[in-house]
């Protein structure tokens, strides 16, 4: 029974996106593809205990889902012949055999991350269609009501159909911009998992970080030469590797310099470092994710070379001159040139980061190190008010309460 459950879970992880993608291509309708795939998995749960796990679960699921889709279209035909014509005219080529549909999944990802959809909708749709998460799982992950999340996904599918968002990999000239849209979605999923917001959530949502990494690996397999895909995957791996050390047993965020390095996942770190080295060796100018990955590679090296980190932030500022990057650079400056120099740099960002919790947390820490306790306390108060993550709030509160005066 455990084996069977394992087989179904395994099939779900490995085959969901393939089956949805193959059906979406054949029937030109994401809604039908999604529902028929879900029905095929229900049928598997009903039938496999008695019939045994089929030798090729992916092929079995594709065939079953195809039948479910045709059944549904026939049922709907009786209601609406015109709709049937529209659906069938979209693409009548036969489904491609399982195993050769990798580019089908890529089409699926590009459709779910289309720029004509709102960013939060892209995230939800990608998790549903490509990740195979249920609507209730996605709703829980983003702290919205299940009905609201269901409506968001339904509206997105309706828009894809009504406006005819194409089901294909974008043309070469559009590809870089569209890939970066896909990566932004994965980064959002990962970050929400890594620093979960909300007073009642776990501080780290392992399910979301794992899913983002799994999807990034999938995209890397499909686009192996894309440097930013490799960069984002490396960044996620090097961040995920520190997960176990990041929150203390009593639920408090642990800063990088105080983490137990023995608790880091050495396998993930080795893989992340390998990807960073591979990108460095390519000689191609790195993008944002590759630079962030390189910074994290330095952080996870035996000894942190702060001048190298500052050089990488300088590089990043040239392609992404955002105040948040400047803030992170200042944190590194504090290690190399001391808190006074860093504080001057941080204070210059006041106008643009006044609502950002990390701005106040960074100021608080620098002021504390300079012994300016009163000002530090005020900055901690602001940071605590703005921080959404439970472990971070706990850390900041303890730090504030440790101030003497």
């Amino acid at each position, binding site marked *: 029974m455990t084996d069977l459950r394992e087989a179904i879970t395994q099939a779900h992880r490995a085959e969901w996106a393939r089956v949805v993608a193959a059906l979406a291509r054949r029937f030109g309708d994401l809604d039908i593809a999604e529902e028929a795939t879900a029905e095929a998995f229900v049928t598997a749960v009903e039938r496999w205990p008695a019939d045994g796990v089929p030798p090729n679960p992916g092929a079995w699921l594709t065939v079953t889902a195809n039948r479910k889709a045709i059944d549904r279209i026939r049922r709907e035909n009786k209601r609406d012949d015109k709709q049937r014509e529209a659906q069938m005219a979209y693409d009548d080529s036969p489904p491609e055999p399982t195993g050769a549909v990798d580019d089908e999944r890529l089409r699926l990802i590009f459709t779910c991350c*289309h720029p004509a959809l709102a960013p939060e909708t892209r995230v939800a749709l990608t998790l549903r269609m490509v990740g195979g998460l249920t609507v209730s799982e996605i709703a829980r992950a983003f702290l919205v009501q299940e009905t609201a999340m269901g409506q968001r996904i339904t509206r997105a599918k309706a828009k894809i159909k009504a*406006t*005819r*968002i*194409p089901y294909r990999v974008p043309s070469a000239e*559009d590809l870089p911009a569209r890939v970066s849209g896909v990566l932004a979605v994965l980064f959002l999923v990962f970050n929400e998992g890594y620093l979960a917001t909300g007073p009642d959530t776990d501080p780290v949502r392992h399910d979301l970080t794992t899913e983002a990494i799994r999807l990034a690996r999938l995209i890397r397999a499909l686009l192996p030469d894309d440097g930013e895909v490799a960069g984002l995957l490396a960044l996620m791996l090097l961040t995920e590797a520190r997960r176990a050390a990041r929150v203390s047993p009593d639920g408090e965020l642990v800063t990088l310099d105080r983490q137990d390095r023995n608790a880091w996942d050495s396998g993930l770190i080795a893989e992340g470092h390998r990807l960073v080295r591979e990108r460095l060796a390519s000689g191609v100018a790195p993008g944002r994710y590759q630079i962030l990955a390189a910074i994290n590679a330095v952080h996870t090296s035996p000894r942190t070379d702060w001048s190298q980190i500052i050089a990488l932030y300088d590089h990043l500022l040239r392609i992404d001159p955002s105040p948040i990057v400047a803030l992170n650079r200042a944190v590194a400056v504090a290690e190399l040139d001391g808190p006074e120099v860093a504080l001057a740099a941080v204070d210059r960002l006041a106008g643009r980061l006044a609502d950002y919790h990390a701005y106040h947390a960074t100021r608080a820490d620098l002021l504390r190190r300079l012994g300016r306790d009163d000002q530090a306390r005020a900055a901690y108060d602001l940071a605590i008010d703005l921080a959404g993550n439970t472990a971070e709030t706990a850390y900041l509160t303890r730090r504030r309460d440790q101030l003497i005066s």
Partner: protein
Amino acid sequence: MQYLFSVIAEGSPDADEAEMAAIDVFNERLQADGNWVFAGGLGGTDSATVVDNRGGAALITDGPFVETKEFLAGFWIIEAADLDVALKLATEGSKACNRKVEVRPFL
């Protein structure tokens, strides 16, 4: 598949000379490439009149149905294979008329 491109203007609804010339070039391209269905520029909102005959007695009111800073200044109806093609054309159209363009499909 047909799409409506609504030209969203702020300030003056009228295109200036350079914008007019760019729109002409764009229109000629649409016609040559088979994307052209129809297009037109509209008078300003101060030329609008709203008619409401839902109650049987037609009520005629001066002015647009809603006063907004942004308003519809013109439109294209475009034939395109899918939304990606339509968005690409809208990108060029927005540049030509130097205004925002809203893209919506016809049902």
